[in-house]
C-alpha cells in the first residue's frame, strides 16, 4: 500500500498492510531534532518547513504530514490561536517554546457583541487587536504568506509520496470561548449566566461550518482538524457537556461528513467519561486523536469498528523514556488498538520540544517495521 492508501484505509476503519504512522511533528520538536533554535522556527515559516522535511527525510519518513510551515503569529492571524502569544526571540529567550497566554481577554459583554457582528468580523475588527502584537497593516501580508506557502509545501510532500494529514484547522467553538474568556470566567458564565454563552456557541458553530468546508474544498483536502481540550469530563460534568458541547459537536461533524470530509478530532485531557457519546457520530466520520491522558485502550473497546483512533505515544515518554520503552509501547498500541484496523499510530498531542532523537527514531522504526517483520 502507498502511505496515502494506508492512511485512508485506517480512517475508513479497514485493516491496512500495517498500522499507518502519523506523528504530529511540531516545528518546535523538529527544530530540536535538527538543531536550530525555537526562535528560528517560531518566526520563519520557511525554516519551519525545512526542519520538518529534514526530520522526515533523516528518519526515513512516515505516512502523512502532520505539522508544517506555519508560525504562531500566522496561526493568530488566521483565527486559529485566539490568545496572546509569547514568541521566542521576541518575548521569550531563543530556546523557549512559544506559549499561549491564558487571560480573560473577552469580556462578558462580548458574547452579544460577537453575535451582533458575527464571529469572523468580531475577531478581525475587534478581538484580534486586543491580542495581536503586530500592526493591522501586516495582517494581509501574514495571511498571504500562509497561502503562498501552501504550493511549495504540497509539492515537497508530493515528492515524498505523502499528503498533509489535515489542512483546515479550527478550535472547537467551546474551546475557543474557553481560551478567549479563559477557563475560570467561562465556567462562571456557564453556571451563572449561560444564555449569552449559548447564543455565542450557536453563532460560532453556524459560522465555522461553511467557512471551514470552503477551505477544505479550496485546497482539495478531505480531512480537517478540530481541536478541543476543555470540554472533557476532566473539567466539566456531563450535564455541561450535554448542553454546551455535544450538540454543537454533532452539528459540526455531521455537516462535514455530509460533504465527504472526515474530522480529525484532537482531544487533549481525559475524555474517558465522554467516550460513549462518540458512538453517536456517523460511522467513520471522525478520527479520535488522544493525547495519552484518555485511556486509549478503553477508547478502542468503546469505539471499535465505529471511529478510527489516533495516538498516543506521550510527550513524557518521548522526552524522558528509553528507545526500548518507546518501542514496547508502540508495539502494544499496534497489537491492541490496531487490532482489526481503524488505528493510526501517532504522538500523544505532539512530539515534545525536547524529544530525544533516539526515542523519535524508535517510534518511527517500530511503526514502519514491527508489523511487517513479526511472524
Amino acid at each position, binding site marked *: 500500500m502507498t502511505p496515502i492508501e494506508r492512511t485512508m484505509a485506517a480512517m475508513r476503519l479497514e485493516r491496512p498492510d500495517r498500522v499507518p504512522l502519523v506523528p504530529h511533528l511540531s516545528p518546535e520538536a523538529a527544530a530540536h531534532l535538527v538543531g536550530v533554535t525555537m526562535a528560528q522556527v517560531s518566526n520563519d515559516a520557511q525554516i519551519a518547513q525545512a526542519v520538518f522535511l529534514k526530520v522526515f527525510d533523516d528518519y526515513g519518513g512516515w505516512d502523512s504530514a502532520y505539522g508544517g510551515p506555519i508560525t504562531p503569529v500566522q496561526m493568530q492571524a488566521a483565527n486559529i490561536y485566539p490568545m496572546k502569544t509569547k514568541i521566542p526571540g521576541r518575548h521569550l529567550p531563543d530556546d*523557549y517554546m512559544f*506559549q499561549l497566554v491564558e487571560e480573560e481577554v473577552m469580556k462578558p459583554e462580548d458574547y452579544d457583541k460577537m453575535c451582533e457582528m458575527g464571529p469572523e468580523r468580531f475577531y478581525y475588527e475587534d478581538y484580534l487587536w486586543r491580542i495581536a502584537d503586530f500592526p493591522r497593516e501586516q495582517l494581509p501580508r501574514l495571511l498571504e504568506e500562509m497561502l503562498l506557502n501552501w504550493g511549495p509545501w504540497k509539492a515537497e510532500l508530493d515528492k515524498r509520496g505523502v499528503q498533509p494529514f489535515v489542512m483546515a484547522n479550527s478550535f472547537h467553538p467551546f474551546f475557543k470561548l474557553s481560551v478567549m474568556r479563559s477557563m475560570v470566567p467561562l465556567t462562571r458564565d456557564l*453556571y451563572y449566566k449561560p444564555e449569552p454563552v449559548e447564543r455565542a456557541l450557536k453563532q460560532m458553530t453556524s459560522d465555522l461550518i461553511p467557512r471551514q468546508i470552503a477551505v477544505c474544498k479550496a485546497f482539495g483536502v478531505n480531512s480537517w482538524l478540530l481541536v478541543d481540550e476543555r470540554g472533557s469530563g476532566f473539567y466539566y460534568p456531563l450535564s*455541561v457537556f450535554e448542553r454546551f458541547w455535544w450538540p454543537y459537536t454533532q452539528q459540526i461533524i455531521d455537516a462535514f461528513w455530509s460533504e465527504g470530509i472526515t474530522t480529525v478530532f484532537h482531544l487533549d485531557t481525559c475524555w474517558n467519561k465522554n467516550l460513549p457519546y462518540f458512538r453517536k457520530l456517523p460511522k467513520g466520520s471522525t478520527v479520535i486523536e488522544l493525547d495519552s491522558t484518555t485511556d486509549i485502550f478503553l477508547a478502542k473497546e468503546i469505539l471499535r469498528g465505529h471511529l478510527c483512533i489516533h495516538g498516543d505515544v*506521550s510527550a513524557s515518554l518521548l522526552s524522558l523514556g528509553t528507545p526500548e520503552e518507546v518501542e514496547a509501547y508502540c508495539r502494544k498500541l499496534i497489537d491492541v488498538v490496531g487490532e482489526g484496523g481503524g488505528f493510526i499510530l501517532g504522538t500523544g498531542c505532539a512530539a*515534545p520540544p*525536547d524529544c530525544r532523537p533516539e526515542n523519535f527514531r524508535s517510534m518511527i522504526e517500530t511503526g514502519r517495521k514491527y508489523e511487517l517483520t513479526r511472524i
Partner: protein
Amino acid sequence: MTGELTAALVEMRRDEVLAAVAARIREGEDALGILDDCRQGMTTVGDRFQKGDYYLAELVLSAEIFKEALAILQPYLARSQPSEPLAKVVLATLKGDIHNLGKDIVAILLQAHGFEVHDLGVDVPPTQVLAKVKEIRPRFVGFSALITTAFASMKAAENMLQEAGLRNDIKLMIGGGVTTSLTRDYVGADFQTLDAMEGVKYCLSLTGGK
C-alpha cells in the same frame, strides 16, 4: 446560620455565601468561626470531587467563592487570634514554562483547605525556589508543568534542594498535563498527579488535616 453558609458554599450559591459572610461580620461574629464554616464547605466539595460527584469546574467555582469570602474576612482575621496554617507550601511553574492555570487552581484549593501558600509565579528559576525554601522552610514544594521543557528545571531545583541539605525536610510534588510517573522518577519527586484535588489530599494526608 453556620450550616447554611457551609451548604451555600457547597452548592456554589455565590451571592448567598458573600451576603452571609458580610452579615455575620456585621453582627460581630468572630471571623475565624466564619472562616471555619467556609473551610468545612470546601472539605465537602473536595469529598464530592473525590467521589466523582463534582468536577474540576465545581472545584474551581467553589474555590473562587471561598477566595471572595476570604477577602471580606481578611481585615477581621488580622484582629483575631491567628490560627496556625496546616503547613506552608511553595508553588511554582518553573523556568521554560509560563502556564499558570493548573498552578493557580492548586494554590486556591490549598488555601481553602488551610495551607499557607507561597506562589512564586511562572518561569521561575530553580535558584528562586531554593531561596524561598531557605527563607520560609515549607513542608511542601509543588511544581506545575504544561510542557516538557520544564522537566529539566524541576530536576535542577530538586538537585539544589538536595545539595543544600533541605530535600529531606520537604515533600516534593509535581503535576500538570504532561507529567507522568516517568517524570516523577526523573525529577526525584515524592508525588505526581494530574488531579489538583489529589494534590491537596496528599498534603492533607501528611498533615493530619481534613
